[in-house]
């Protein structure tokens, strides 16, 4: 396929991880594929860039927990430069007095750290984990394959599938599961555990990236769903070179399989003729033709802006335009001239995922403040020191720190120009409560406010999941009933972004399953 060809078997819109995975699988099946992206580099939200010379960090997404081994093997990613710096990170719930809770595969020490806060939590935690594991086992098979479409006959099929698995659980677990689905994570945790710190950390995990607080209904299921996604992956971690290395490996693999990646080619329109997609038109007017188009852009934008409402029946337009996409986040990347000193930290903790959420009240207050357009006084956050496992990200002895601050308003009172500095100061001060020497070690930093994330990645005010991950928008309801099978209602058009099943995070599964759906549909016709 020459470099200026305009006709392909398939076009993939967006060179993020899912777009590239989809392109890889399509190319592997022998299709000629072109990936089109408006950005200057591949990666989408999984990119590595410099904070300042010699200090590199994953600009947006900084952790990978749900990337399946199968995709890595299928696309031979290790041959294309994917090396995991770590995939066995612990989760550390930071405590001001140094009694940190460390969640790891080492069950004994894990329980010990939890017990230090509330003695009765030792057994309670074991029971909680055991029950969570059951739910994960229940859901896992659904996340690894395509969901039946619930619009028509698929509805009974989906219900039957779930009913069968639910029945197998036994009456007690079934009751607990049914109670869990509409619950808030706060209700779930209050039912199960005592310690404030563990509950704060888990509630932050459940709500991270969504416009939700611990008391928001449905967040209990979000927690279980997140755990299921982790169970599909290979453990929490990141590759050498940051998350950008994953997408670079994916790009290289796709190109090796014959796919072409064309950057700086923003797609303006998906062309539809007689209810069938025929290709895409770029912003500069260039037309690429293909009978199959996969879009990793969010379903709302794909359907209403790129295709246009006119190509869908009114009920579908209603469904799509009502996809909930909310939740603003800020990202702070710091270059440090040494490791900040955390009390009672060892190797394992420094290399772990650090959660600052002293209790559920703090997490809830940060959400409430964001709803009002204000900045919370006590920000909660997820922080990682990627250079700990991947020293080449910073000069010898120096480090980078990557911080995600959820529940930040998109339109802050007073405007971000005014609020940016106090916001960063508040975040640094909060971390300094745990690592007092942090501010002395900062030599450079990068702050991405929600409007800046919007400009760079397009998800400033809409959450990074292309549709909130709540039960009503998951599984066969993702992105909307009638599109769960990746088919976007226009023949030949498929959705392949995180807005589709099984949803957000760097999993590559939407891309894989969407490509499989497209290939399967082609075989039938």
């Amino acid at each position: 396929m020459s470099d200026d060809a305009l006709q392909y078997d398939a076009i993939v819109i967006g060179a993020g991880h899912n777009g590239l995975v989809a392109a890889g699988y399509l190319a592997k099946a022998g299709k000629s594929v072109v990936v089109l992206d408006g950005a200057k580099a591949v990666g989408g939200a999984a990119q590595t860039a410099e904070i300042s010379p010699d200090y590199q960090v994953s600009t947006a997404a900084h952790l990978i927990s749900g990337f399946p081994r199968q995709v890595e093997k299928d696309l031979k990613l290790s041959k294309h430069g994917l090396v995991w710096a770590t995939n066995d990170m612990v989760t550390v719930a930071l405590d001001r007095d140094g009694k940190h809770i460390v969640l790891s595969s080492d069950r004994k020490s894990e329980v010990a750290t939890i017990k230090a806060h509330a003695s009765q939590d030792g057994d309670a935690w074991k029971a909680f984990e055991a029950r969570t594991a059951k739910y994960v086992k229940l859901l896992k098979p659904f996340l690894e394959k395509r969901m039946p479409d619930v619009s028509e006959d698929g509805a009974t099929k989906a219900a039957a599938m779930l009913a069968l698995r639910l029945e197998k659980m036994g009456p007690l677990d079934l009751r607990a599961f049914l109670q869990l689905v509409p619950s808030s994570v706060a209700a779930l945790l209050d039912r199960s555990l005592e310690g404030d710190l563990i509950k704060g950390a888990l509630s932050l995990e459940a709500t991270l990236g969504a416009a939700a607080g611990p008391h928001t209904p449905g967040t209990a299921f979000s927690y279980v769903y997140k755990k299921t996604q982790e169970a599909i992956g290979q453990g929490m971690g990141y590759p050498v070179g940051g998350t950008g290395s994953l997408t670079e490996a994916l790009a290289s693999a796709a190109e090796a399989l014959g796919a072409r990646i064309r950057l700086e080619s923003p797609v303006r329109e998906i062309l539809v003729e007689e209810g069938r997609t025929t290709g895409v038109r770029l912003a500069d007017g260039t037309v690429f033709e293909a009978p199959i188009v996969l879009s990793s852009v969010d379903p709302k934008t794909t359907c209403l802006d790129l295709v246009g409402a006119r190509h869908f029946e009114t009920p579908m337009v209603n469904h799509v335009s009502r996809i909930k996409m909310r939740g603003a986040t800020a990202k702070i990347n710091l270059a440090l001239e040494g490791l900040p000193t955390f009390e009672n930290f060892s190797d394992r903790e420094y290399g772990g995922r650090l959660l600052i959420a002293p209790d559920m009240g703090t997490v809830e207050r940060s959400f409430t403040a964001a709803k009002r357009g204000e900045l919370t006084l006590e920000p909660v956050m997820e922080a990682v020191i990627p250079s700990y496992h991947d020293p080449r990200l910073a000069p010898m002895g120096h480090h980078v720190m990557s911080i995600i601050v959820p529940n930040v308003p998109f339109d802050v009172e007073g405007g971000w120009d005014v609020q940016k500095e106090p916001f960063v100061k508040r975040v640094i001060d909060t971390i300094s409560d745990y690592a007092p020497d942090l501010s002395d070690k900062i030599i450079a930093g990068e702050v991405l406010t929600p409007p800046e994330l919007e400009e760079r990645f397009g998800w400033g005010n809409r959450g990074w999941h292309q549709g909130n991950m709540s039960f009503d928008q998951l599984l066969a309801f993702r992105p909307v009933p009638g599109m769960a099978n990746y088919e976007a209602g226009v023949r030949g058009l498929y959705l392949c972004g995180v807005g589709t099943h099984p949803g957000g995070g760097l999993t590559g599964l939407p891309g894989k399953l969407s490509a499989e759906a497209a290939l399967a549909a082609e075989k039938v016709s």
Partner: protein
Amino acid sequence: MTEEVTDQSAPEEGLDVSRDSPLNGPGVAPDPAWFEQAADEPPYARHVLTTPLHLEAADESRTNSWAEWAGYTVAQVYTSIEQEYDALRTRAGLSDISPLTKIRLSGREVVTCLDRLLTRPVGDLESNQSVRAVLCDGHGHVITEGVLFRLGDEEFRLVLRSSHMDWLMQSALGFDVQLEDVSGTIAGLSLAGPMSDNVLALAGLEKPATLAKHHGAWVELGGMPVYLSRTGMMGGREYELWCDPADASIVWRRLLNVGQAVGLRPIGAAVRDIARLENGVALEDVDYQSAFTARDPSEALSPYDLCLGGCVDLDRTVFNGQSALRKIAASGSTNALVGFELDLADAAGVGPICNGDKQAGRITSHAWSPMLQCTIALGLVEASALGASDGFSIKTHAGENIPAKLTKRPFLGSS
């Protein structure tokens, strides 16, 4: 300051005056609540509405018999059903159709928007031509039907029996099109009957006879602009006149005055209903449930069920209900709304329609047709029963089996 003073003194003066009022008697203070302004009433809270022709209708009414139509009060019978029916079918009848919902659609993409909204394309419609419009939901069920007028290149008017504005607004999303409910700014009069041309001629209009069916034109009637269209649902020679509400009663009066010579009479809703049934027209909420008001999905009907298959054009770009209708068209419809002639003077309270011994459907509306000298009815029956060799019958409340003769719609041949 001065304003405050007058504000305070004004009600006191008012009290003094009313104290002397003969209604209250001397020395009795009126209840201050009488003078309080009534709370503002939102427009949707009002269910008793009058049309611009209400005073004229009240003036003509000899029976004080009224009917409710979409919240409006319209005359049920002016003099007697027999007289009015006779006028309509042998001379001419004038009636008030202002309660119809009228929606103006305009804009650059109005044609593509309507193409997606309706079951048939409208691009070929000429200016001043009208067409029957069927709206389906995503399941291919009929929401409502009405008449679509093309008034210009980028201007249409949709006339419906009920509004469904929310659905229309949702369906306009993503199109460069403006939607406006103009019901309150347009009054409607229906002129029907074999002598209606003569009435229009007497009113000073020479041309209407040349107006083709389903076409319309702006005319001047007594100096007032009137949009005259050869549309209606009663069959025979009929016209609809659309005008400014302020002009409506003058147009009405003028037509009645000049029409007296040829026997024009105002006709009420009762006769209109007989006439529309003779013409075989099914009504939303009477003969079928709108897809939105059906309590059970099985109550909602497709255009094929309503024998409106002629209004559906499947092979074109996407329109509401297309994918569902394709499936229905392939598998065949399950119901059919068909016409029956019954050998029965009054069909009120009759039981189900039977096919052989099996129950096969129900009567949805019925009337005694003086022209046909029999009771005619629309009935919703299972499509499978249509092919059966057994004839249809109806069980009366007396337990008798009355044969029901399957009849073509419209019952009265159109002229």
